[in-house]
């Protein structure tokens, strides 16, 4: 069986390079460097992609602050904080996974990737629960959106008891809660889509990691995926205070 762990030092060895080095690269170092830079550029595009949503959010929050405050009270701070903690721990397990790959610990790598995967699923599960609740309360734009919780807070005892000082909004201000929820679903939905893509890639990686693909010196894939995963975590780090923590004080 050929030894796939042989690596060459320097580019002078004509064809004695690792099987995972592509032919248009002069050395493994160039390949690692290049693919890592490519992933960072991709993350740049993601910054600008979410950036448009953050800009829209900024403007409407300034314009319709009361609507945004009361609408945000409809979100469960417990679930939001839990999700934040879940993602932070998953970022930790992912970073540990990279370390395991770098130090060639195959079993530990598989464990870290599995934990990241499971935490990702937990996040999505909690998100689903939140979305479901919004659907039931008719707070999804376009699906029989209802202003009742905002024009008449007493009709919504669960939230009303937690925030008794929330005044009933006039209909024109209450209308604007639909923009809040539109942005809420757009932003968290786009984020969740990125989570789903990440989890799918994780599943593939777990398979490959079990076969030892990432613990023979070729850690680029795990490393670059780690960058993606951390970025998705960072997006949530900003979504959490902006959507959940607008103003929870009495």
């Amino acid at each position, binding site marked *: 069986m050929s030894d796939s762990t042989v690596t060459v030092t320097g580019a002078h060895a004509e064809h004695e390079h690792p099987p995972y080095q592509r032919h248009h690269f002069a050395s493994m170092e160039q390949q690692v460097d290049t693919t890592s830079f*490519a992933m960072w550029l991709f993350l740049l*595009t*993601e910054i600008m992609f979410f950036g448009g949503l953050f800009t829209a959010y900024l*403007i409407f929050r300034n314009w319709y602050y009361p609507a945004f405050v009361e609408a945000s009270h409809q979100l469960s701070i417990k679930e939001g904080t839990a999700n934040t903690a879940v993602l932070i721990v998953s970022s930790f397990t992912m970073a540990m996974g990279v370390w395991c790959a770098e130090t060639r610990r195959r079993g530990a790598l598989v464990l870290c990737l599995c934990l990241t995967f499971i935490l990702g699923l937990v996040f999505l599960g909690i998100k689903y629960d939140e979305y479901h609740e919004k659907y039931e309360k008719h707070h999804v*734009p376009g699906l029989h959106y209802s202003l009742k919780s905002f024009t008449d807070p007493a009709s919504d005892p669960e939230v009303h008891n937690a925030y008794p000082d929330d005044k009933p909004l006039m209909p024109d201000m209450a209308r*604007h809660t639909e*923009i809040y929820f539109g942005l809420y679903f*757009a932003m968290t939905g786009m984020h969740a889509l990125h989570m789903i893509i990440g989890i799918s890639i994780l599943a593939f990686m777990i398979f490959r990691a079990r076969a030892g693909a990432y613990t023979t010196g070729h850690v680029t894939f795990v490393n670059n995926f780690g960058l993606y995963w951390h970025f998705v975590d960072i997006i949530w780090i900003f979504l959490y205070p902006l959507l959940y923590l607008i103003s929870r004080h009495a």
Partner: protein
Amino acid sequence: MSTDTIVRLPDQATARIPKVNFLSKENGLLSWLLTGDHKRIATLYLISITFFFAIGGALAGLIRLELLTPQSDLMAADTYNKVFSMHGIIMVFLFLVPSVPATLGNFLMPMMIGAKDLALPKINLLSWYLYIIAGGMIIYSMITGGVDTGWTFTVPLSTHYVNTNVITTGLAVFVAGFSSVFTGLNFIVTIHKMRAPGMTWFRLPLFVWSNYAASILMVLGTPVLAITLVLIVLERALGIGVFDPAKGGDPILFQHLFWFYSHPAVYIMILPGMGVISEVVSTFSRKRVFGYTAVAFSSVAIAVFAFFVWEHHMFIMGVSNYSTLVFSLLTMLVAVPSAIKIFNWSFTLYKGSITFETPMLYSFGFMGLFTIGGLTGVFLASTGTDIHLTETYFIVAHFHFVMVGGMLMAFLSGIHFWWPKWTGRMYPEKISQLAALITFIGFNLTFFPQFILGMLGMPRRYAAYPPEFQVLNVFSTAGATILGIGYLLPILYLTWSLKYGEIAGDNPWQATGLEWQTQSPPLTENFPEIPIVDHDAYDYEWLERKQKEVTSVG
């Protein structure tokens, strides 16, 4: 040997296309559809782009036919709206944005920097597939009714008041956007990481600098367009309210987000063309480009400033007057780096040994027409004049001067210049010079009257117009017919040349540049061994010394 051409071809009696080249290396459909070779992908792009250009051009023909008469008699107003919208969408997203980068850039850039391929060949192929998917979606959208919102998808028209294929077309443009993003990403990584030994940043050909600047714009700007289209789809499908005044949304927000990409987009379109002009002007004046550093930095400056000026598309839309002051000033500033380039090319020509082969003719056309188009842009940057000229034919003339008189001429210049390298064969010179002349005449006859029409007040995007504008419109349509012939001819004779063109050899233009120091068509891996670069770009003395050394023809 004639002294008014720099062309040096090998002896046609004995010359042959090299047996092993990127075209002959592998055969079969799959070897093309699953290729990683940047040159094959560039060829795939060239064919697809020409196809979509033809559709966009046909739509332009329909527009000009309708505008022959003041009444909306050829087609209903709604249909006319669809025709100009699809013309704009196809020409902008499926032709102009990918044109030079995806064809010439893909083909040449690795060779120009001395690399074997782009950094991410599979992503390159993915870019092409995304382009094809987007193109297919747009054709589907056209067949099932098209959109009539204009290529700018202005809200609330597109979200609330039309029942045409906004969502399909919006998603198609979204996909095309990602094709563009991946191309730009690939280019940036390649230029940073894959240069040959000795190829420092300031030895790069200016074509590479231009594509680098355009790639930065692609990577940073296009995602904002993507998210804007997502918001349009959500607004239209679910009524989330961000753009709906009835729910407190702001239609101007759409325009901010849309133009944040679409203004840099025009620089994505023109910068690679400017790169072509640098190469062609240098070769056909036998002189290094004057002020290399200035041209290189001006490309990057254009890319940076491009992000600061978008609101000049919105001066009359209801933005605050104070912001129009800021953006008006910034727009005037962005003209400066472009002007620097024109000065530098002019000084390159000064005291050069100029010859007038076809690529040079197109470049002359570019320099004149882009200058006119660019200057009219400065008129529009001034808020006061813009209030009167915006949404009239003045704008239409302005952007056609820079995009068609500028970009499309640069594209044709580049295609002709690098055709011998790409195919190993020369195009027929006389007929191509004739075609260039026809294009120039046709272009001016088509679009110059439109400046006057705009000044006189004819609005854009109208199927019907007051009868006093008819004469100028007839001139414009006549010009369009001539222009159409001018564009048809290259398609015909370039195809002809594939079989019957003269064998070109490695370096028919005696150009500097690494791509000219290897065979035509190139090998799949570009170079038999990676070159080591020890000279600056446009070093004609180095070329002369090298030619004296080489005693045999490849």
